[in-house]
């Protein structure tokens, strides 16, 4: 594959504006697609391969995926400083907007009309929350141990009222031991 040459490594301000552009473009969703378009195709900071590696790392480690992706891009160029600048570019504007919305909410949510509309919106949002588990259920359908683990975690959280952190600390090592790769893949 012949890719156009990469642009020189972005400076911190360029990183900030690039991430801000990603955040602004993705109003209405599709954040990771936009970030690929801008970072790989328009600004040519990374090859597609580098970007996809980043996405793998971002999904693997704790934290929201899109935010981790910004951290990956920033850290790749300027370490911790780059990560923080990229994060600020990605978050500052949407977050400020959301806080304005939040202030309006706390000011007006007691109005009956506002509350009625919100009751409807909440029902739709609850449906979205409900779909999250089903969305990834397919990939575990043929793995009985995975389903058993998932069921145990579900029961512990829902009926036994175990908190998330202890649940993960107990179930995590057990699951990791079970899924430990048999053949050593160490180089």
């Amino acid at each position: 594959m012949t890719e156009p040459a990469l642009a020189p490594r972005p400076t911190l301000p360029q990183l900030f504006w690039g991430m801000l552009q990603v955040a602004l473009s993705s109003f209405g969703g599709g954040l990771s697609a936009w970030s690929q378009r801008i970072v790989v195709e328009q600004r040519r900071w990374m090859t597609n391969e580098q970007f996809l590696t980043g996405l793998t790392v971002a999904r693997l480690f704790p934290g929201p995926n899109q935010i981790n992706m910004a951290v990956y891009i920033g850290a790749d160029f300027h370490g911790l400083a780059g990560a923080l600048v990229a994060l600020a570019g990605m978050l500052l504007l949407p977050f400020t907007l959301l806080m304005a919305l939040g202030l309006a909410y706390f000011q007006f949510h007691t109005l009956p009309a506002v509350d009625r509309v919100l009751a409807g919106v909440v029902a739709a949002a609850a449906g979205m929350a409900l779909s999250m588990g089903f969305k990834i259920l397919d990939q575990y359908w043929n793995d009985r141990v995975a389903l058993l683990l998932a069921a145990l975690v579900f029961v512990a959280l829902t009926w036994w009222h175990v908190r998330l952190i202890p649940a993960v600390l107990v179930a995590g090592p057990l699951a990791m031991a079970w899924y430990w790769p048999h053949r050593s893949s160490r180089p």
Partner: protein
Amino acid sequence: MSGLFASAAVCEPARLSDLGTLLQVLWEFLSLSLFSLGGGNTLLAEYHHLAVSQFCWLSNAQFADLYALAEAAPGPSSMLVGLLGLGASWREGPFWSLLTAYGAEAAILLPSTLVMVLACLSWKRLEHSPWRVAFERGLGPITLGILFAVGLKILRTADTNTPGVLVSLVVCGLMLRTRISPLWFMAVAGVLGGLGVINR
């Protein structure tokens, strides 16, 4: 369904102007940060526990409203934490509220960001390590279990009437079967709420 929470309704809202409480809250968010598996939505039930049951900043209905707001607004839905911060010190005025909001969001993002930076710097070594493989495969099923628990928790928190629950189920089905933007579902459901079909 609301009977489940009735006993928790008497708790006193924790005030963040008390230094001890503030540090405790910061600690809760900082430590949760490292447990945000599968993109962060796994933390929703914990947020509910902190904001509604433990610190009593919000009612169930308010929590559900803020969750919907964060989902509808552009940007990552983890910004819900900022809204919780806003609610936590709403009684102390808007300035203090905003400060808490930015602080809460920074607390939930900082630890996972630091881990992510370390991961980027050492990915070449991590990539083929058995630890990485076991972590990735093992935590998948756990994430699955958590997401189902979270979905049920949010449904209970929304606590709408029967038409509302039906709308939730239909939206869940449509989210899985179609690629329609969820904004449409929220808009239509909002209208149904305005007309009084859905209430709580």
